[in-house]
């Protein structure tokens, strides 16, 4: 298998994995917009996380930022798979930012809120997987 083909496969897998994250983030965004996370009724730990002040930035649910980030990853990975030159750089930068944000959210859940939301943990796992996929990408010089 050529390096170019291997790279295309990795970009395609990255795009598909990001769709799973997009679905998760979309679900959490909808929950935030319906006001459900400001109530009790679901998993108490989940609602403690999603109803906390850390779940919003300037009144905007962080899940919405997550959905935008996953969508960006999908778009950049798709363009990269079609060999658009700059898409790879944007993809790596976006996933790097998501990785740092994920570390922050894990810190908040563990040390500040002492509660875990399974949807947030699932999103963290997806981001770590995406980070692993971009690390596995051969450099752009390799052919």
């Amino acid at each position: 298998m050529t390096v170019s083909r291997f790279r295309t496969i990795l970009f395609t897998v990255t795009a598909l994995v990001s769709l799973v994250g997009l679905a998760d983030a979309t679900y959490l965004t909808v929950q935030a917009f319906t006001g459900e996370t400001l109530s009790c009724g679901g998993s108490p730990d989940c609602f403690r996380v999603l109803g906390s002040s850390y779940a919003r930035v300037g009144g905007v649910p962080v899940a919405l930022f997550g959905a935008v980030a996953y969508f960006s990853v999908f778009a950049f990975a798709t363009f990269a798979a079609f060999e658009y030159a700059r898409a790879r750089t944007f993809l790596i930068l976006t996933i790097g930012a998501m990785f740092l944000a994920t570390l922050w959210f894990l810190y908040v859940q563990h040390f500040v809120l002492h509660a875990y939301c399974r949807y947030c943990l699932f999103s963290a796992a997806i981001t770590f997987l995406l980070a692993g996929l971009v690390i596995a990408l051969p450099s752009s010089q390799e052919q």
Partner: protein
Amino acid sequence: MKRYLPFVIVAGIALATLGSGALLYHAKRPQLRAIPESTTAPGKSDTESMHVRGNPDAPVTMEEFADFQCPPCGNFAGFAEELLKEYDSRLRIVFRNFPLPVHEHAHEAAMAAEAAGLQGRFWEMHDVLYREQAAWSKAPNARELFESYAGTIGLNLDQFKTDVDSEQVRAKVDSDHALGDFLGVKLTPTLFINHQPVEPKDKNPAGVRAAINAALAEKPKSDADLSAPVNQANQNQTNASK
């Protein structure tokens, strides 16, 4: 064609995400019914067992379905106090028990509050339960703490211990819960202002104040207009029981 394909794929996913998000939003919005007027109108039988705070003849009634172990309900209780001071004689608050099964001690707490209510101290117990929520929520034996709160607010302790397990108290909690179920309550706190449900997204200080102000503005045309959704709800209840 290959040049445009990524644009088509990305646009397709964007549309699919927005569409599924909109559908999910519509599906997840709680479908709440208006409260039948007979359950809150002064002079009706249920009024005697209702827990009302504020002016009993206030033009605006805010009914809250709440769970004593729910942290947002605890936060809301403090805000409700502020509202009562702010709106003074124009607002009354009705409390309804809606203990959620996900909260281990919620039902027991509701029973304790109702048992205190039999000695005329419901609101005192309501306040202490929310104030001490963090303590008893994690306690292995919450009952002991409830009994200590009963002593603190000056209840006859023997009577409280008897009442807290009584059928009368259980029936009151269950009756509130059944009303909540009928109305479509799934989350706590769930609010109704003058019988009309408050959208979950409006369960914030600005949203609740706006709903109260709107109810105050509408009040002059009250009875005739309010009876329409009430009659519909009564009709639904009749149909449901058939």
